[in-house]
């Protein structure tokens, strides 16, 4: 029996949205009041077009069932641009929706249990979980029921309706995976042996987050018992609510508060607050563990056949991961920069029904979609089915899985077209078959269209964020390049700034870095290892440190003047001369 999917939606909310929209149109509520309401319901204004909106569908733990995929497909065609977009926080984003149609979109979403509630605005945003949770080789236990439980507890909870600023909770599946250290709250599952009994619990991190100024989350304590999970989260949210800055919108994420007070001080405050929470929390306020469907399976011990298909072998090497359940595999669809068409969504729904034993898919923070619980004997057939619909691109678990936020395709804050650039880099790396290079498999490229880090550039091996540079009076799209970031479970570090690169030279610079690495790497050294050596001033001869690397890259990264090469003054995907145009963001409502 498949578990009933959680109903995250509340049908009345669509009616309420319609009422508020009408009041706003009749000038009975102010622009500000309506904006706050709209953001609380996941509706974010599109680039320079107040009539159009992005509708962000919250997907707790990234779990989506086939019926929901089909509904998203239908909505995309009827109300949007025919494709949906997977975000780095496991949301589905539906872009360029006409504001007047949002109530209809919410009604449709609610038919399949999906909500946009608290997907934007000063709220607890989507609670994410590592997409491998439940199948990960290294996890002590599946965090998904906890992640969904936390999501459900805070959804529509009065605690969470008017925070100083947005708030993000990330669950890792193990010490090696997931984004626990870049959330306001991050959680890694742990087992602790006490009196011969294994106790479930978490290591909790607080005050992490990416943005114009980023921080890695600080550990709260070594081990937090599972019964203390909810009180700890409530304590942290309450402290932020009480002490957070409601004035300075640009500097009021919890990470600033934590570092203004010092992490040590904040840690003590959390522990104290948690005592109060535990003493005063009504017994009804409990964490409900929401179990996912766990397939009843037999381990497959079959000898695997060798399949003489080069493309399949490449895909198998770069998109398929073994599960802790022997004989089962997790498969990545490697969506280019997170975009998936309505036709592909429908195909994926059918494929999921046919091949995935758990009958759901998982959205990933690398803007992709995973199919899990695939039998080894089905892999080749699955590959061919996926490929028929353009969902069989190789390179998912390699440097070729480029992340790119929506950038100037729809965002008010974006300066550059990071989205298109990510697709271009991916296409180039795949064409060069660099996804097959063992040394490049653990490296990543992530791109944001502005310093705000939706593309998570600071945790990339090679990261970029968009800006503009003036050369002899002409404005060119450029990217700030960062090196050596990562976020893997309990390990995380932020990339260091290296240099500015013209948008049109980003691909060349990436290839140049790879070339330098190949020339000077140690035996089986990987690119990310090589880069961290350079950052630590232990790099190879001539590329000892970032300064020396910069010198090596400078000739590749120069900008010719506009009369020599006007293309440098036009952004990717653009036809006109580049203008650095932005409008007010609505993140801080």
């Amino acid at each position, binding site marked *: 029996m498949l578990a009933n999917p959680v109903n995250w939606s509340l049908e009345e909310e669509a009616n309420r949205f319609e009422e508020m929209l009408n009041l706003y149109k009749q000038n009975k509520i102010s622009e500000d009041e309506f904006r706050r309401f709209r953001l609380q319901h996941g509706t974010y204004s599109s680039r*320079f077009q107040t009539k159009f909106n992005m509708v962000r569908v919250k997907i707790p733990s990234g779990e989506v069932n086939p019926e929901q995929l089909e509904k998203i497909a239908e909505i995309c*065609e009827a109300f949007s*641009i025919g494709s949906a977009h997977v975000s780095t926080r496991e949301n589905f984003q539906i872009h360029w929706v*006409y504001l007047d149609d949002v*109530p209809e979109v919410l009604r449709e979403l609610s038919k399949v249990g999906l909500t946009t509630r608290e997907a934007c605005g000063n709220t607890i945003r989507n609670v994410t979980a590592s997409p491998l949770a439940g199948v990960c080789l290294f996890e002590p236990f599946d965090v998904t029921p906890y992640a969904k439980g936390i999501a459900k507890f805070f959804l529509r909870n009065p605690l969470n309706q008017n925070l100083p600023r947005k708030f993000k909770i990330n669950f890792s599946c193990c010490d090696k995976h997931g984004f626990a250290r870049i959330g306001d709250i991050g959680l890694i599952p742990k087992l602790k042996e006490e009196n011969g009994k294994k106790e479930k619990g978490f290591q909790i991190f607080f005050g992490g987050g990416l943005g114009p100024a980023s921080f890695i989350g600080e550990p709260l304590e070594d081990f937090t018992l599972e019964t203390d999970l909810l009180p700890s989260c409530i304590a942290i949210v309450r402290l932020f609510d009480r002490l957070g800055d409601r004035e300075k919108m640009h500097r009021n994420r919890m990470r600033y508060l934590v570092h203004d007070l010092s992490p040590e001080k904040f840690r003590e405050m959390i522990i104290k607050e948690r005592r109060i929470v535990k003493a005063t929390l009504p017994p009804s306020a409990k964490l409900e563990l929401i179990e996912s469907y766990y397939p009843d399976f037999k381990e497959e011990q079959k000898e695997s056949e060798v399949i003489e298909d080069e493309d399949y072998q490449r895909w198998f090497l770069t998109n398929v991961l073994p599960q802790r359940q022997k004989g089962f595999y997790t498969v990545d669809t490697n969506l280019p920069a997170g975009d998936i068409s309505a036709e592909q969504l429908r195909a994926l729904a059918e494929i999921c029904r046919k091949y995935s034993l758990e009958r759901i898919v998982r959205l990933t923070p690398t803007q992709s979609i995973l199919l899990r619980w695939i039998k080894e004997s089905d892999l080749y057939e699955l590959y061919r089915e996926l490929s028929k619909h353009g969902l069989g691109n190789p390179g998912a678990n390699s440097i070729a899985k480029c992340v790119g936020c929506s950038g100037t*395709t729809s965002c008010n804050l974006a300066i550059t077209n990071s989205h298109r650039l990510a697709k271009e880099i991916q296409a180039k790396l795949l064409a060069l078959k660099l996804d097959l290079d063992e040394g490049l498999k653990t490296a990543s490229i992530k791109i944001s269209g502005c310093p705000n880090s939706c593309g998570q550039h600071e945790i990339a091996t090679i990261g970029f964020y968009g800006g503009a540079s003036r050369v002899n009076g002409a404005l060119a799209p450029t990217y700030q390049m960062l090196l050596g970031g990562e976020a893997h479970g309990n390990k995380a570090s932020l990339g260091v700034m290296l240099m500015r690169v013209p948008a049109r030279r980003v691909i060349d610079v990436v290839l140049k870095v790879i070339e330098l690495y190949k020339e000077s790497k140690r035996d089986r050294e990987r690119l990310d290892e090589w880069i961290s050596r350079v950052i630590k001033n232990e790099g190879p001869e001539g590329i000892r440190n970032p300064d020396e690397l910069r010198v090596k890259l400078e000739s590749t990264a120069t900008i010719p003047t506009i009369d020599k090469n006007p293309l440098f003054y036009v952004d990717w995907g653009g036809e006109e001369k580049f203008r650095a145009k932005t409008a007010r963001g609505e993140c801080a409502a």
Partner: protein
Amino acid sequence: MSFLISPEELKGLIGKDDVKLVDARRREDYLQGHINQAISIPIHDVIRALDAESLRKLFSSKGISQEDTVVVYDDEKGVYAGRVAWSLEYIGHKKVKLLDLSYSDLIKHEYYNNKISKEEEKFKEGKLDINLNESILANLEFVKGLIESRDGFIIDVRERLNYLEAHIPTAQTMPWKVFIGDKKLFKDADRIKRLLFNRGIMQDSNIVTYCGGAGTLSGISFYALRLAGFSKVRLYVRSFLEWKELNLPVEVVKDANYWDLSAY
């Protein structure tokens, strides 16, 4: 009787002398198999008939007469059938119907007991007059007038990206699939009505639908609005193709690379 014919109703109609079934699909598809007694009038022939007299000739040559009940179907969610039906209505035919589901769905339907036919249907030349129904046509002058007077709404039913790139000034965007049902031809009338009400469009508003060029997507949208009780709907049959050819002004959504969000 509504202008939509259910499979149950169709069963009672097949075989009657004064009922003509029109298959609007491509001729090749018709020859592969069609509903018993259906006549082939491919959409492309209808689009090529540029004036009322050519349309009259085309339809009468296919055996359609003034007094017939004509039921049109396709396998394209009404995109072909709508345009054919509209053309018949435009020259003054009063008994034009649409089959309420696509051919592929019909032949799977439990009420459809007739096996498909591969024989070309024989028919006699029909008798048709022209009695132009100008109230369902929007020509260039009408569209321009509406933009000027603001006394009505222009609806662009092309896909959203095409709309963002360029559209007729003042037009609103409603991709045609917003009207299309799953098993039935259209979504529920109430849903369509609510969608338009939320856009500030009333049932007695003047409405023009247009699409990329052939009046097909906008043709089926025309009928969706009629179903929802909008009484003054017109089809701008030459659509955006004419508008562009004449180099008339367009509105564009600037400074955003929305095309790059597409997964197609």
